[in-house]
């Protein structure tokens, strides 16, 4: 008795016990699913302690930045665009409503009312009659007349900080930026807003977008899809199997295997405290095809053999003897392919890989132990005409599939060279295609084109500077001046003071104090503090007419002390402006805002709104005075979004027109280029933050991680193949179909311009898992058959009987079974559906065409050992 039939004896003898045990374990693990915690935040693609994430959170905190829901209001019909009393009334009502939003179950999830950017929540500085400026709310209340509405328009459009951000340059749209405490509140905010909006009448159109909305909404819809697509795929697989095997009672067993594997795996995933992430939500879809593959092999074999053996027990024993080793190896290799994902630096992908691997091994166990039990539970009579169709029709009237396969066998044998030539040509073309692959992702594009979020994204980004945010943070590099250098600088500045030149005696007193202090001071800070204290003492004791001169000296000292406050320095501010201009020239950046824009705007308004004064004034003090003027507004803290209160760090708020990672990468590259070609006037470090940037970082990690995972699992699988076949040549042969399939699939991706995104990347592991399956089955059986026939030309005919039929059925069942995914409104699901079908077709064909052709050409080398064994 061989290992296969030996192992299943327990199941054959105690089918009820085995079945009950399986059901109980599945129920136990399945019950854990209720503990599910969904996490749709792509930020979690990176570990929490990942440097860029830590920095992103630091930047958010330091500059009081929040994740934002963007609500766009558009009016294309009114001649004044959105600037009419009705629309502005809606805007006001909506923004007041938005401020009140809070999750009733979790007060921590709320809208941050104080940081809203809406017409009623931003301040403007503007002219208020001759020689007067005024700080006022852009829209203290909804306007009552057309005049008032137009006044709001002119005021907003005249403010560079608002134009292109809050209001569109064409006047047809207003964007309200609703900051939220956590991203997973975004979908709720969107729903509440939509409910409120449904009460409005008129020509206004409303659009809601922004990365948090896209990401959170995707999570919610993903859930729905999981509940629709996975069962639908299950039904499709079921119907196809019914078509092939015609025996309802038998094909239920692969369905049970799939269900058990999926339920137990998901239960274990959730039970072990993992969140249900975008990646892990796809586990059922990935697991199902692999889980049913083994059962289909068993069924197919059972189907073909039952009528000759006519005993379910002996048939199943025979089948298991035939298939045990290939099934073990296919499962191990598939599992290894997915387990290799644990090597990627992305936690959700790791969890995905590990649990799919677990599911595959579980499916194998269930297939080995439960399928025989199931067969035993069936009454022998009920199998009476199982597989009878084929037998009755006989070899003369083969089914279309069998006929096709017989022709294929002849073709591969006769045209082996041609096949290999075409294969090599295909490989070369594919490699060219792979070279053209565009690595890109964009969470908004996870929705299909006519999804409201996708539409909103398009409309709003056509009106505004961009609804995708990235933050470029410039930070002064601390450069401790030597005490001697500080000393010289202070003296030099002091000597340049008009106050000092007109009062040489005071100057010499001051210098004397400097010189005395420098003897004891250890560093620059200590030196300056000591000089300051001594000067203050001298000032207190001074005559009235000297008091102010001492104040001037002290100012000079403060300027030296504060020289690290580089973002008050006109040179630095102008540099920031140039950097912004350069960024804005890239097609991706619609607009950017910085402290420089604040300074320029205030400066202009202080000088009667004259456009010539829209510039950075010439001294640090003048800049400081513009900034302190700004702080007399209703929203002084608005400034701290752009600069820290110590003026050592500045944040450039970059608005991107699309969320494509490629766009972000382009901007990053542009900034690098600009900054190395144009060194800033002060030593600064620059770093990026913001969701759009974060996506780029994890994508990078994913691409390289996937590549490493794939190559390592490729090697592991190759080693396993060599061990299985005890031959390097056979092992290499087994790798051919999957290599060709992967090259072909990714080549096509490159050619059609489909972005290489998360699902596409993960599919390489699936390809590895599925394609190797077919090769193992095919080669293992080839060797078995060869041992009987001692001739490849005879063996190939047998190979294209049951073995090829099993592979073909598998290809068709899985490829067609996953077409329901194409109906999903979420692009990653469609992608998986299309590629699963393509992978199955390609690897099935590669196995059945290329392998026999190669064997034909290499038979001398391949069967050397077999001949020796058998002779």
């Amino acid at each position: 008795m061989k290992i296969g039939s030996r192992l299943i004896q327990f199941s054959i003898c105690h089918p009820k016990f085995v079945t009950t045990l399986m059901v109980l374990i599945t129920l136990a693990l399945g019950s854990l699913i209720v503990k599910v915690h969904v996490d749709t935040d792509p930020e979690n693609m990176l570990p929490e302690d990942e440097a860029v994430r830590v920095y992103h959170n630091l930047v958010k905190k330091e500059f009081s930045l929040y994740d934002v829901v963007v609500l766009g209001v558009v009016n294309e019909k009114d001649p004044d665009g959105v600037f009419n009393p009705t629309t502005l009334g809606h805007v006001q009502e909506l923004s007041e409503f938005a401020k009140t939003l809070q999750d009733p179950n979790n007060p921590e999830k709320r809208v941050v009312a104080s940081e809203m950017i809406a017409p009623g929540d931003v301040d403007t500085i503007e002219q208020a009659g001759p020689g007067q400026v005024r700080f006022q709310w852009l829209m203290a209340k909804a306007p009552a007349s057309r005049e008032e509405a137009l006044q709001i328009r002119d005021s907003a459009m005249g403010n560079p900080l608002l134009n292109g951000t809050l209001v569109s340059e064409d006047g047809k749209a207003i964007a309200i930026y609703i900051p939220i405490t956590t991203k997973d509140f975004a979908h709720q905010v969107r729903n509440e807003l939509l409910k409120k909006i449904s009460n409005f009448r008129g020509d206004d159109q409303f659009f809601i977008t922004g990365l948090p909305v896209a990401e959170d909404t995707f999570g919610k819809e993903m859930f729905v899809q999981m509940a629709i697509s996975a069962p639908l795929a299950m039904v499709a697989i079921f119907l196809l199997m019914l078509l092939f095997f015609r025996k309802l009672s038998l094909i239920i067993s692969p369905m049970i295997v799939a269900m058990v594997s999926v339920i137990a795996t998901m239960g274990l995933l959730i039970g072990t405290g993992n969140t249900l992430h975008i990646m892990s939500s796809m586990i059922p879809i990935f697991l199902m095809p692999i889980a049913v593959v083994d059962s289909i092999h068993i069924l197919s074999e059972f189907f073909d053999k039952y009528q000759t053996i006519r005993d379910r027990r002996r048939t199943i024993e025979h089948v298991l003897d035939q298939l045990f080793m290939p099934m073990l190896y296919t499962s191990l290799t598939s599992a290894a392919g997915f387990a290799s994902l644990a090597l990627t630096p992305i936690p959700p992908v790791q969890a995905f890989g590990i649990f799919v691997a677990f599911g595959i091994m579980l499916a194998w166990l269930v297939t080995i132990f439960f399928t025989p039990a199931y067969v035993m539970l069936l009454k022998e009579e009920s199998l009476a005409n199982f597989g009878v169709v084929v037998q009755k029709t006989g070899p003369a009237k083969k089914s279309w599939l069998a006929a096709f396969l017989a022709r294929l066998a002849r073709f591969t044998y006769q045209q082996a060279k041609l096949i290999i030539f075409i294969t090599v040509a295909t490989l070369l073309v594919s490699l060219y295609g792979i070279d053209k692959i565009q690595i890109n992702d964009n969470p908004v594009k996870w929705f299909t084109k006519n999804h409201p979020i996708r539409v909103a994204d398009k409309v709003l980004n056509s009106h505004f500077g961009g609804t995708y945010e990235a933050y470029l943070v410039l930070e002064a590099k601390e450069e401790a001046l030597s005490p001697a250098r500080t000393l010289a600088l202070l003296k030099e500045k002091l000597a340049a003071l008009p106050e000092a030149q007109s009062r040489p005696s005071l100057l010499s007193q001051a210098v004397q104090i400097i010189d005395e202090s420098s003897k004891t001071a250890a560093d620059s800070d200590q030196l300056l503090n000591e000089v300051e204290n001594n000067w203050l003492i001298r000032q207190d004791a001074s005559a009235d007419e000297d008091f102010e001169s001492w104040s001037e000296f002290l100012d000079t000292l403060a300027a030296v002390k504060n020289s690290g406050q580089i973002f008050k320095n006109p040179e630095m501010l102008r540099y920031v402006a140039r950097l912004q201009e350069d960024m804005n020239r890239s097609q991706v950046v619609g607009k950017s805002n910085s402290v420089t824009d604040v300074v320029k705007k205030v400066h202009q308004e202080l000088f009667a709104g004259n456009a010539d004064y829209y510039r950075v004034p010439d001294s640090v003090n003048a800049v400081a005075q513009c900034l302190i003027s700004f702080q007399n507004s209703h929203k002084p803290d608005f400034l701290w979004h752009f600069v820290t209160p110590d003026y050592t760090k500045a944040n450039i708020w970059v608005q991107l027109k699309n969320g494509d990672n490629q766009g972000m990468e382009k901007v990053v590259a542009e900034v690098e280029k600009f900054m190395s070609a144009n060194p800033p006037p002060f030593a600064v470090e620059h770093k990026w933050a913001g969701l759009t940037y974060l996506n780029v970082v994890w994508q990078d990690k994913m691409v390289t991680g996937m590549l490493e995972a794939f190559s390592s699992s490729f090697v592991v699988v190759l080693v396993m193949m060599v061990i299985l076949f005890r031959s390097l040549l056979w092992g290499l042969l087994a790798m051919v179909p999957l290599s060709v399939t992967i090259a072909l699939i990714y080549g096509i991706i490159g050619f059609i311009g489909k972005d290489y995104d998360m699902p596409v990347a993960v599919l390489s592991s699936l390809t590895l898992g599925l394609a190797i399956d077919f090769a193992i089955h095919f080669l293992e059986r080839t060797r078995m058959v060869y041992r009987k026939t001692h001739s490849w030309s005879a063996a190939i005919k047998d190979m294209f009987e049951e073995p090829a039929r099993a592979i073909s059925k598998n290809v068709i069942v899985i490829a067609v079974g996953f077409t329901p995914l194409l109906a999903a409104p979420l692009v990653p699901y469609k992608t998986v559906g299309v590629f699963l079908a393509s992978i199955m077709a390609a690897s099935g064909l590669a196995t059945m065409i290329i392998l026999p052709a190669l064997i034909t050409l290499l038979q001398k080398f391949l069967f050397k050992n077999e001949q020796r064994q058998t002779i």
Partner: protein
Amino acid sequence: MMKKTFSVLSLATVFLSAATCVLAAPSVEEIINKANNAAYYAGKDGKALVDMTITDSQGRTRNREFVILRRDDKDGGNQEFYVFFRKPSDVRKTVFLVHKYTDKDDDRWMYLPDLDLVKRIAASDKRTSFMGSHFFYEDVSGRGINEDKHELMEDGDKFYVVKNIPKDPVSVEFSSYRVWIDKKTFLPMKAEYANKADKPYRVVEALAVEDIQGHPTVTKSKVQDFTSGGETVSEFSNITYDLGLDESVFSERYLRKPPKEVYR
């Protein structure tokens, strides 16, 4: 027995309430007037050095140091303020000049030395930040007592608690505010502002009071903003009343050439 106790008690109650009637003589208007005078009109004029520390929700602090000069036309009447900035040093010599009127909008000027610019600031809205702090202009110069309806909420041991409801609710961000007025000094010791949802979101408090030249004077005050999580503390020193400041000091002319009083 029961009856007797009861009658004694009720007698006492009648007596007590009669007594409170006599003692609680000041009407709410009177209380408000006295509080307004105590807080903003001590002496004929006055001077103080103010050290302001602004702390944001992250605990980051910024400092302002300025000298404030004040002159009253008469108690409860028009006033002038001259605010001269000493620190931060890059805004030193920046001046704010306010002419406060009881019957119309204030006149406000700002002088920015390094832009060599005197600018009038429209004062239609006084609830804007004072130099980036959590204090509003109105906290510095006082809110016109006629702008609110007043209601005495509580006549406690130490404080009168007065609720103030704005007559023009659109012009302000609060729906009402309560003020705790010290019964002895009539200094407002605490003001608590409620937002449109009637929740407190802002509190201004006097943290220290000293007697200066016979005037109880707040020498330390704090404002907390619950919405942003920040606060500002002002400490007053070098306080002097009745310096005999000339009216001309509070004219536009003196913006560019500050009076000697601001220096020392």
